[in-house]
């Protein structure tokens, strides 16, 4: 059970800065996720922690001990690979025992620990089977059992669910989370799936082009994104560029192409150009005779495309300048309303216009 300090770490491949001066602190026992599109450096960062990728600069510590100078086989990390990497020449039991044998654990001890680990991933009785007899989900469980049985300082998971089908993916992520809480182990988890990241993590680091854009808990990532990239990568967002007009301490007004929008106050002065993020579900189309809730502001527009998705409906409203806002509601709009209402508290400034 260990905290991970990643301190000013960098790595270039040719001219590409795969990881560019990244510093992250992962707390003891925390489920920490690296989230980002492919090529953002998240896997490289994970492989640096495991020792499979050398650092150009910076250092990595487990607790107070520096580990980036250790060879990978001395770091005591448990890694779960995207393609499972279960040894095809060993049985399930042999796979799980592999790391214990390397640690010269006694034979009886190995047997009981392997049994316990297999029970933990609900594979009890599978010890004698061969990997080619197992399904993808079962192989995944073997990989996890093999990684946790050695009681690693940290558990590293590299897109472990991306080879599973959608339903199994949801089931397995719940199980990984349950296991992590049960063992109280520190987890560093890599994924490009934002829903997965939000569902499973204590905290998330959103990465782009080798840099960390924001580190926060899932709610803050979604509801208070600090950059336009985070806002648009995690969920969908209406990104609006405008100029700050009034600033009264509590709220401010921002003028943009489609009109004036009221925003929760942020560090900005009148005349500043800013980028705003509004989630589709934070906007509501008013029926013809409906009045907005107290404290809510309004915008005028015309109803455009409607997409019925089952549980929710997405639709767009065209504003005065011809640009469109995306909205989401549980029910399709009943009448062709012309007024959008919103809570200014849910409009977030995500950055300055460069």
């Amino acid at each position, binding site marked *: 059970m260990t905290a991970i300090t990643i301190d000013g770490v960098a790595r270039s491949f040719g001219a590409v800065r795969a990881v560019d001066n990244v510093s992250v602190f992962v707390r003891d026992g925390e489920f920490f996720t690296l989230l980002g599109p492919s090529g953002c450096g998240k896997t490289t960062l994970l492989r640096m922690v495991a020792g499979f990728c050398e650092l150009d600069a910076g250092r990595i510590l487990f607790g107070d001990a520096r580990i980036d100078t250790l*060879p990978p086989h001395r770091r005591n990390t448990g890694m779960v690979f995207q393609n499972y990497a279960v040894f095809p020449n060993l049985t399930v039991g042999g796979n799980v025992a592999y790391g214990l044998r390397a640690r010269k654990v006694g034979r009886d001890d190995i047997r009981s620990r392997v049994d316990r680990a297999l029970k933990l991933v609900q594979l009890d009785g599978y010890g004698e089977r061969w990997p080619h007899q197992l399904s993808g989900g079962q192989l995944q469980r073997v990989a996890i059992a093999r990684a946790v049985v050695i009681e690693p300082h940290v558990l590293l998971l590299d897109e472990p669910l991306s080879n599973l089908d959608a339903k199994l993916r949801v089931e397995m992520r719940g199980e990984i989370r349950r296991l992590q809480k049960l063992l109280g182990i520190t987890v560093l988890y890599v994924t490009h799936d934002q829903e997965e990241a939000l569902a499973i993590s204590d905290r998330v680091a959103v990465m782009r082009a080798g840099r960390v854009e924001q580190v926060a808990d899932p709610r803050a990532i979604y509801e208070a994104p600090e950059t336009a990239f985070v806002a648009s990568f995690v969920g969908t967002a209406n990104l609006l560029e405008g100029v700050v007009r009034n600033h009264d301490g509590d709220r401010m007004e921002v003028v943009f192409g489609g009109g004036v929008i009221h925003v929760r106050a942020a560090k900005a002065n009148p005349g500043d150009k800013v980028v705003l993020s509004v989630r589709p579900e934070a906007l509501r189309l008013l029926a013809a005779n409906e009045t907005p809730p107290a404290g809510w502001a309004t915008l005028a527009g015309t109803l455009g495309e409607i997409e019925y998705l089952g549980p929710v409906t997405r639709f767009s409203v065209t504003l005065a300048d011809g640009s469109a806002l995306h909205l989401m509601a549980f029910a399709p709009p009943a009448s062709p309303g012309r007024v959008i209402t919103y809570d200014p508290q849910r409009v977030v400034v995500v950055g300055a216009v460069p």
Partner: protein
Amino acid sequence: MRRVLARHTFPLAVGAIAALFLGLFFLLPLIKVFGASVLDATGGGFTLANYINVLSNPFFLNGLANSLVIAGTAAALAVLVGVPFAFCLARLPIGGKPALLALAALPLVLPSFVSAYALVLLFGRSGVVTGALQALGIPFDSLYGAKGIVTVYTLTLYPDVALPVIAAFKSVDASVEEAAQNLGASPGRVLRTVTLPLVMPSILAGGLLVFIEGLENFGVPFVLAEDRPILSVEAYKLFVGETTDNPASAGVLGVLLVVCTVAALLIQRGVVGRRRYATGTRRSAPAMAASPALRRLGAVYCWALVGAALLPFAAVVVISFMQFKGPVLHGGFSLDNFTELFQRSYRPLTNTLMLATLAACGATLIGVPIGYIVTRHRSRLSALIDIVATSPFAVAGTVLGIGLVMAYSSGFLILTGTWLIMVLAYMVRKLPFSVRSTGAILHQIDPSIEEASINLGVSPALTFVRITVPLMMGGIVGGFVLTFVTIASELSATVVLYSGSWTTMTVAMFQALEGTSAGIAAAAATVLIVCTVLPVALVYRLLRRHELSMM
């Protein structure tokens, strides 16, 4: 720095061993050959006189032209017969494909000069078929010279083209062809404008292989060329010295041979290198819906080609059980030829088995680690090792043999005349195959399997022993057997390096050919065929998985 060194101990150690081995037994002999070609008679001064002597001699110029024309024609013919064969096997629904594939690969492990010798027995001046034809009054010109050599090369080397091209035809993504058809191209047009261009790199690579093997082959021209000059044979004759030994001129011919193969390699790289035809997701095209007539035609063609290639070997086996009087076939079956062969000595057989086993072990022990670091540890060092370790295939066996004798008949290490120098030559010659086949096996093993082992606390070196080697074992055994059989039938380096007590089966046959004991030669050829076919048949199931990608 210490950290970097520690992390790269394994590749550095392998690199050092590879550098030492290749430096001593490949590069140094080559340098000696080159040195001999540019040194004057005193051995001290630089001179181009040797080159001028050789290149102004019409006999040698003729030899150079003969070698190039024969190898080039053989390559073209091998492509011409090999590509349709590959197409039939990859795309037409014809019966007996596994058998066809296995039989098509067989000529690659069988000694090609045995096929040449069979041609002499059948179509030579006193050949069985020649005699029969002449008795019937049909004029038949015997098969000596360029046409015979080209025929043997085409029949024994077409698998070099056919096998990789089968794999290439299968790896063309079906949807690419479907897209062309969807855009209005007829099946013939699709083949011409999409499929053939996509398999062209494999065709060229196969053709190049035939060209290089045709240039360097010693046994086939030795049997069939008679007095026409061929580079590899002339280099041998000059060096061994039928009249007076002439290392300088032998060196020049050796350098010319190496220059020709390297030039061919560079041209092929230039043509293929600029194109990249990797198609993304792979779904092989299904067997073509061919008309029954076309299907029958394809089947007849494939079986006929495979049969024609193997017929000479079968003929030799049959003939070896017949009675001879000198070079003339007498008729009637007996074991006399074998009795006579083994009455002289069993040594050639035991020598062949022992030397081939030792050399195959050596090539595997050095080649597998080299193949491993070349595939898994990508760096400038490993790229360099890759180039050096695979370049022996561009050097004729005769030239390597001459170089080894030049380097190790005096000085700090004297090896000439020993069994060790033969084993070393075989190891160098088979190293490219060992390195390449290891690479092919490793591409089937996901690197994360090894990372998982290291992550669980097992050092890289132990991981190699505990995880990688067991997973590679099937491929390594298959590669070992192929190395063994191709060494057993090696002649071009052997003929330069052997000494009396280390006569091999190939040399025994070679000597029988030089004399007039055709029966003993046929018996030796049969023993050789058994030595190569038997091990391959024993591990056939292991080999089947690898032969297409590696040979």
